[in-house]
């Protein structure tokens, strides 16, 4: 128990990488299991932010340059742009289909 507490008291690269892997997996899980388009989009945001954490952690602990932080700023902007467009598309979908369930939006099929 004490070992774990000491480990938690001194955060290093591993902690952040674990967090990012966790976030990434949760995001992927949400994308694969959720039927609501908004929830899928939230999963995508989790995945993008997981890589943001990776970039900062690697920049801080392993490379010692600011590249990681700079890239993360761009990743945040990207995520915002993507969310804006995706929400506009989902809104349009709701007006057309009256649902945002991705399983029911299936007119195009073999």
């Amino acid at each position, binding site marked *: 128990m004490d070992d774990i507490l000491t480990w938690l008291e001194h955060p290093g690269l591993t902690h952040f990488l674990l967090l*990012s892997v966790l976030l*990434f997996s949760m*995001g992927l899980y949400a*994308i694969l299991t959720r039927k609501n*388009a908004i929830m*899928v*989009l939230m999963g*995508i945001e989790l*995945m*993008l932010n*997981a*890589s*943001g954490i*990776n*970039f900062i*952690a*690697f920049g801080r602990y*392993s*490379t010692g*340059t600011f*590249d*990681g932080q*700079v*890239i993360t700023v*761009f*990743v945040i902007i*990207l995520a915002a*742009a*993507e969310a804006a*467009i*995706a929400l*506009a*598309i*989902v809104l*349009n*979908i709701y007006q*057309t*289909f009256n649902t945002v369930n*991705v399983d029911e*939006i*299936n*007119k*195009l*099929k*073999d």
Partner: protein
Amino acid sequence: MVEQVLQNLSQFVPETVLLVTFCAVILTDVILKGRPMAALGVGLAGTVAAGILAAGQFGAPQAVFHGMISVDPFAAFFKVLVAVSTVLVFLISLYSSEVRSAVKRMGEYSALIVSATLGMFLMAGASNLLMIVLALELTSLSSYILAGYTKEAPDSSEASLKYILYGAMSSGVMLYGISLVYGLTGATELTGVRIALAAGAGVNYPLLLVASIMIVVGFGYKISAVPFHFWTPDVYEGAPITITAFLSVGSKAAGFAMMIRFFVTTSYGDLGSMLGVLQGFEWPKLVAIISVLSMTLGNLVAIWQDNLKRMLAYSSIAHAGYMLMGVVVFTQNGLSAVLIYLVVYMFMNLGAFYVVMLVAGATGSEDINAYRGLSQRAPLLSVALVIFLISLTGLPPTAGFVGKLYIFSALLDAKWMWLAVIGAINSVISLYYYVRVVRNMYLRDTEVSAPPVVLTRPQTVLLFVMLIPTLLLGLYFAPLVDLAHASVALFGVR
């Protein structure tokens, strides 16, 4: 500092022109509200200018903006290719009933096509991991909206939703892979990644393999290779035909440019690629498997399609597989064969989509049954479609044959016999579904109610703009081959 930026900007003129065009299109749309086609004209003129300027960049390779972007013959080749395809898409859009149905949003349409083109220009030159992501996203974000341009149509809305969900997921996975590569090598420039990998100290190879595969997901999605193709049929069917044509050519070409540059620049020694650093892992086999899957699945599923747009979507998956065969070989011959194939593919595929669009405009249907007896109602269009389809199959004397010839000869030179055999079998399979359309046009009687398809003079001229290169490149292809070889020469692969 300032001098350096100014000096770099002089190498960045084509992209700057596109950026200015983007703003100009929006302004034109605002100022000339009553004339929506003016915006399209501005976009067209700007793209032509950017393409001409990019054609002047076949000089010595340079890295601009702190190695963010490479300006070299390889990038110039793809920039010209993308510019030509964008210009053709703009011209096709003039006669598209779908685009005209939402004519008051013409400004947005033109502006987004220009911004997607800018993204593709940047993809062709991106030599930094950050730039790769940004260029890819600029292209993708513009394409998501374009796929849903006719937003009143349920098909188009559904296409854009599916596109953005699949696209955002693959770019998320790719970004995570890139973050791992950054962590493992400490570099963001592709050359820096290579240097760090060659030094080899402290690189965790299994993790590097995972990261590489995650990055391949992003590339695979962009070029619509199996198993990252799930969006392709739905998006191609649902989006307006002009946008389908744009995505199937420009987007795919830029994706190949980015992928080839990434693998070549990060490769070192005899290992072939970043993927090769893992002991005993034969990365060409992985790409070969993706290529075989793309060809086989694309061709086999295309057989069952009755919607021409959907059929061409599966055929475009199959063509991504053919082009990947050139990447598998990874020699100068193989890579230049990909470039040759992309040029050929641009003309024949845009041509096929153009004919499908004209027929759909006259009959209101993209179904294969709408093509019954088309040879009597539209003789010229039928002949043109036959030539495009023969070229897509890869039979002489069309350009498609030349594209396949160079891919297969590169494969045989590099002793990839089994892959060449599978490629050849696939070409035969593809003949079946292309001929189905031809049979419907020539051997089936037209329905009494079917209206004739009348071409105006400009439409005929545009048809010949795509038809002539498809035939000419099948007979006189030496300049194209030389240009392709010169464009990949800078990579120094054997």
